């Protein structure tokens, strides 16, 4: 199994989620993170003093899935999360050795479906 971690723009989450559901991907976990990259943070002003907000809000989406689903999911995320502006984010793919469903103790493929 693989784990796909996508860092996306928060306002794209709804689109991405819908696209994944359409694809039959139902299980996912999200986390509010902040990112630094080409997209620059902005400069704010407080009582006459400037300060830089270096990290911009992002949403991290994690999906654990079967190996053969990776390609389709990556494509779907790219399409749904793209706004064609710097900061659209990245997708990382990692290996997962084992999955267990807590409720039933089922493992791996069974645990995912």
């Amino acid at each position, binding site marked *: 199994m693989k784990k796909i971690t996508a860092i996306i723009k928060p*306002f794209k989450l709804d689109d991405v989620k819908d696209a994944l559901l359409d694809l039959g991907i139902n299980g996912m976990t999200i986390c509010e993170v902040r990112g630094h990259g080409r997209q620059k943070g*902005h*400069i*704010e*002003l*407080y009582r006459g003093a400037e*300060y830089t*907000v*270096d990290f911009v809000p992002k949403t991290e989406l994690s999906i654990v899935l079967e190996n053969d689903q990776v390609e389709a999911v990556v494509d779907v995320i790219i399409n749904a999360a793209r706004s064609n502006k710097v900061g659209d984010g990245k997708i990382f793919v990692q290996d997962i050795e084992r999955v267990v469903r807590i409720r039933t103790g089922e493992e791996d493929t069974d645990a995912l479906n």
Partner: protein
Amino acid sequence: MNQGIDVFFLTMGAAMVLAMHAGFAFLEAGTVRKKNQVNALVRVLTDFGFSTLAYFFIGFYVAYGIHFFMPVDQLLVLGDNSNGYELVHFFFLLTFAAAIPAIISGGVTERISFWPNVVATVLLVALIYPLFEGMIWNANFGFQTWLEGSFGAAFHDFAGSVVVHAMGGLLALGAVYVLGARKGRYGKNGQIKAILPSNIPYLALGSWVLCVGWFGFNVMSAATAEAASGLVAINSLMAMVGGLLAALVFGKNDPGFVHNGALAGLVAICAGSDIVHPMGALAIGIVAGAGFVIGFQFVQKKMKLDDVLGVIPLHGGAGVWGGISAGIFGQAAFGGAGGVSFISQCIGTATGALIALAGGFIVYTLVDRMMGLRLSEEQEYDGADISVHHISAYPEDDVT
């Protein structure tokens, strides 16, 4: 005895209505998204500031023909017995005038540009509002005389259901229409999409402050301590309660409806609070509260007006109802004090509503043409806090 006691009376009234502006600010800050909280707070405060200038230099003269452009010793504040009553009376009435932009603010929030909004505020408080205010409360243009002659009684609007609230709420209609909906409020097929409030406790705080301050708004509208009326106090209470309980039931326990329902009752009772029976006030409040719940959904879903806080039904709808209902429950037949004409109430209310509707469209269209009323798409997306004020509501969180 001198008028010190009346100065005291109106100072308390003015302070309480000033506090209501804080209520407007928090009601709005709690209802908008987090990225627009600072803007809501700053806009309400600065609107109050510019309203003061507009009303001091122009509006008060338009309504009452009074100005203060003479040295202090001619302002009848020293060495006579008035104790500067006229000056605190100005302050009290200003807090009403400044409610106009504060009301509208809840409709146009989350997307209006800062300085164009200021220009609209000044136009409304210097001209449109005092025009109607003077007609009703200073008997300008012979309108009241005509009503009294024709229908037996002048238009009765004790504390401003129509003069202030219907005016503000219906001016907002034009503003919201000209401005357009927030991005994402309506889907491709026009279906409504939820844009959720950031903070119910702030909303509740705002509502409470408004409720409490409202007793200054209504009771101190008597203008002198000698004229203070316990009936006005109890009627405000009964209408507030009617409004909140009706909104509770009709709004299925939604906190936004409950807290605004109390305000709807208070809006509606302003006009007749000195003449209706407490049970009449309760009925007025119940209709206002239920009407607000229905009206809110009507404006949002049917009229497709993105009136963020629901000020069109809250102030506009309940205000109109207040003007008319004073003509019903004010009648002796309904246990009221009488001396009020149903027809005059309808005509007075309609006149105010028309001026507001026309005024709103004209002023906001004008400002839009002149300087663009709306934030750019990017500014709206980033939020007015960052775009306009270069800071968010919780700055520490942005950097840690």
